[in-house]
């Protein structure tokens, strides 16, 4: 490669909002119901049915807009986007084109060369489509309208990103903001957050943008990073060969680590947008915006600062604790009960993270209660159990959310405080291991470790190792 290239990336991110009911009817948005059970005449496009806007959708959209420094469009409207597809029961999607609810915002990300602002062109509200299931055996397609009418916001960035790292930093920051707002769980795997990557390349220093492609079907950060790398290389290769990049939509296949063309610009629909006549314009008063602003929960940056100040948590730890709203919530709730922020932090950063990795689960899926973690911390603090027992118990809390007090009691895991029993056991160990005793007395101080271990084994782990140590030293 003789020339130097620059990658230019903009994102379109769809986020499913966490409302209980759909955007234009009162059907449930719950995921995973039997096909076509969360439906009504409105979300199945029956003749004569009419949409009624769910106000919560507007509130969430405004909340996200405020948190991403957008201007709120105080007179905004819905438009119809017309296209035929069986998952779209009306054959038009109610969306926003002319007056989207939020405009001209942006968020700051950290890059190796310092802070950088990624612009947000607009955020608009729209309805999701149903789901098509292709039945290969019957050679037919089936439609499930449970998802039809689930509220979405689409966040359109400016073409301000230059690398996969910047893209991940932007997506992650946005994801955290939205999660903290409670506006969505933002799960890439399940599709409650869908990232489409618009990418073009140009010679370094060029002012003109190259021809861009849009990449779809990116279900993880890894897939996003891989797809960006592959698409960048594909486009540069084309240019190096003297060929042209075609404006098109491509689909990423993460298993094959390659993409293929879905449709070119020539196949693009004319969506014939026009103002949705079944809905009245939304007028958003200053007062409404202020109310939402006042109700905004503490976002990550503020939390990070507060953890460091209030709990004296190191920067690195605070970042990890706030890296997911769920973990931050557990941290705060547990600390509120036991008032030991450092210990809580250690359990979350250590064992919790280890088990999450081992079990392959996301922070959002954590199911243990702060009450039980707090009880466990207290048991250790009281000296009722030792650390290795505590780790075993935590694993069960992590998986089954049991009450550690009851569990320790039932299983008889409490430390034995009976000094007579301990002395008797240690005497037995000394008698049974003359070699180690000799080594210790001969100056091999490390030999004591083996004797402690043997004692612990005989005590079935229910002893305090520091006490064993102390008694051993006295007896030897």
């Amino acid at each position, binding site marked *: 490669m003789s020339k130097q290239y620059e990658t230019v990336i903009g994102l379109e991110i769809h986020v499913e909002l966490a409302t209980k009911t759909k955007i234009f009817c009162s059907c449930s948005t719950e995921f995973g119901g039997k096909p076509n059970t969360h439906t009504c005449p409105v979300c199945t496009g*029956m*003749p004569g049915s009419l949409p009624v806007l769910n106000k919560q959708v507007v509130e969430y959209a405004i909340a996200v807009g405020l948190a991403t420094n957008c201007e709120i469009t105080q007179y905004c409207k819905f438009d119809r986007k017309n296209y035929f597809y*069986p998952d779209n029961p009306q054959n038009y999607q109610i969306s926003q084109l002319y007056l989207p609810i939020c405009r001209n915002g942006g968020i700051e990300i950290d890059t190796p060369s310092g802070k950088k602002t990624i612009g947000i062109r607009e955020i608009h509200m729209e309805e999701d489509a149903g789901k098509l299931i292709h039945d290969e055996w019957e050679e037919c397609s089936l439609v499930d309208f449970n998802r039809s009418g689930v509220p979405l916001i689409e966040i359109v960035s400016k073409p301000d990103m230059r690398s996969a790292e910047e893209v991940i930093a932007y997506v992650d920051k946005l994801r955290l903001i939205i999660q903290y707002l409670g506006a969505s769980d933002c799960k890439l795997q399940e599709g409650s957050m869908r990232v489409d990557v618009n990418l073009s390349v140009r010679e370094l220093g060029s002012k003109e943008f190259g021809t861009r492609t849009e990449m779809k079907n990116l279900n993880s950060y890894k897939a996003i990073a891989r797809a960006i790398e592959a698409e960048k290389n594909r486009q540069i290769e084309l240019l190096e060969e003297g060929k042209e990049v075609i404006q098109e939509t491509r689909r990423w296949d993460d298993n094959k680590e390659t993409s293929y063309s879905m449709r070119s610009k020539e196949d693009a629909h004319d969506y014939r947008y026009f103002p949705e006549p079944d809905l009245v314009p939304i007028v958003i008063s200053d007062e409404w915006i202020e109310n939402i602003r006042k109700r905004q929960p503490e976002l990550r940056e503020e939390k990070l600062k507060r953890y460091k100040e209030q709990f004296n948590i190191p920067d690195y730890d605070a970042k990890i604790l706030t890296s997911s709203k769920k973990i931050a919530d557990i941290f705060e709730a547990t600390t509120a009960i036991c008032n030991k922020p450092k210990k809580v932090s250690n359990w979350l950063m250590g064992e919790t993270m280890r088990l999450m990795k081992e079990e392959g689960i996301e922070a959002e899926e954590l199911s243990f209660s702060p009450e039980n973690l707090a009880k466990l911390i207290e048991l250790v603090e009281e000296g009722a159990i030792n650390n290795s027992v505590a780790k075993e118990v935590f694993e069960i809390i992590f998986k089954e959310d049991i009450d550690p007090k009851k569990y320790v009691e039932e299983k008889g895991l409490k430390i034995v405080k009976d000094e007579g029993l301990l002395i008797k056991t240690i005497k037995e160990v000394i008698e049974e291991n003359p070699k180690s005793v000799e080594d210790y007395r001969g100056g091999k101080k490390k030999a004591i470790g083996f004797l402690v271990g043997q004692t612990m084994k005989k005590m079935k782990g229910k002893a305090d190792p520091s006490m064993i140590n102390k008694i051993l030293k006295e007896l030897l």
Partner: protein
Amino acid sequence: MDITRLTAIELGKKIKSKEVGVVEAIKASLEKIEKYEQEFNCYVTIDKEGALKRGEEIQKLIDEGTLDSPLAGVPVAIKDNICTKGLRTTCSSKILSNFKPTYNAEAVINLEKAGAVIIGKTNMDEFAMGSTTETSAFGETKNPWNKEHVPGGSSGGSCAAVALEECFYALGSDTGGSIRQPSSFCGVVGIKPTYGTVSRYGLIAYGSSLDQIGPIARSVEDCANILEIISSFDVKDSTSIKREEYDFTSALVDDVKGMKIGIPTDYFKEGIDEEVKKAILKAAKTLEEKGAIVEEFELGLVDYAIYAYYVIASAEASSNLARFDGVKYGYRTKDYENLNDMYKRTRSEGFGTEVKRRIMLGSFVLSSGYYDAYYLKALKVKALIKEEFNKAFKKYDVILGPVAPTTAPKLGESLSDPIKMYLGDIYTVSINLAGLPAISVPCGIDSKGLPIGLQLIGDCFKEKNIIRAAYAYEKTRPYIRPTINI
């Protein structure tokens, strides 16, 4: 006594006083239907069994004293674009020929609460697109006054059924004149209410920003009573308006003293039939004699309304009718290669010519590169027309004019020249563009023996003004029944 000749209110009173039984009234209507349907084709579906069963239930409730609405037990016909639970609703289209809604339109719910008995679904222009009821997939309806003429449209079936006394009243829908024009052509009374007064939930949309359901009957009194029953604020329709009052019947007073009535001179320039013109001006004179202050004025922009209307209504229709695709309900073509082929064949076979014409027109004016020149411009014209009316209503309580430039044309005359047919809507479409209420009242019969309709237009939410004027006018001219030749 021929029960079917009674007005809806008169029948309601007789049912209450036990002079007439509900089932007796239904049977009388069904007999008329039996007598005339073959010839006039007002109905797409007649629900004989359902009506008789419902009649017995209603009679019981009336006897128990739990139902005291003025229209309890009175048979009604519903235009076939208004959804009726379990009763086929076709929009007079092949594409919905097998469609049975699982829900009632809000207007139907309101009627049923008042004890109405639905006797059948009336014929119309396919998807309410047309001014003659000839575009129906179920054959044309004929004019009760002369079988060789059209009944008008699109609510032609409803208006003809009312004129033929096959029912006591009917519901229609009006997007550009579809209640008023056929009312005029059939010699009955019809009201298009202020946009947002009657819920559109369950009305199969043609032009969503223009559509309104309204009453059709043989007297102004009936229409005011029906309107009072079907109007409501409905949270299911975002364009429904919470009105300060839903009282229309208190306007039924024979007094127009001091009422200011304006006559737009622009309505009488060219294209209007001399006999129609004479009848309208005579009606104005009558109201003047009763004490109204009548004067002529320039309305402005009259000529632009039709073009703006056809752009806006067709644009909305092209999108509203997209859902009829053979996937979920309604007609699906028998043989197809793939999805796109299924869409194409279903819609090609399922829709008639006029519907296809408007879908194409609407798709064109919304397509990129044309949106600003057509659709956006039409919206601007719409706003300007509203301005013109606002100015006029600063001076007048009611605007008076014709419903249509001519009386009912002959069958087959209109479809060959759609532009001419569209131009016939000149006096009605601007009312929908401005969202205003208007009433059509019979005011004469031309030399061909066809009825002429007088249009009284009110400001938004001022239905009472037009009802009062129409009621006072009607008092000077008793209802004339058509002489029906089979």
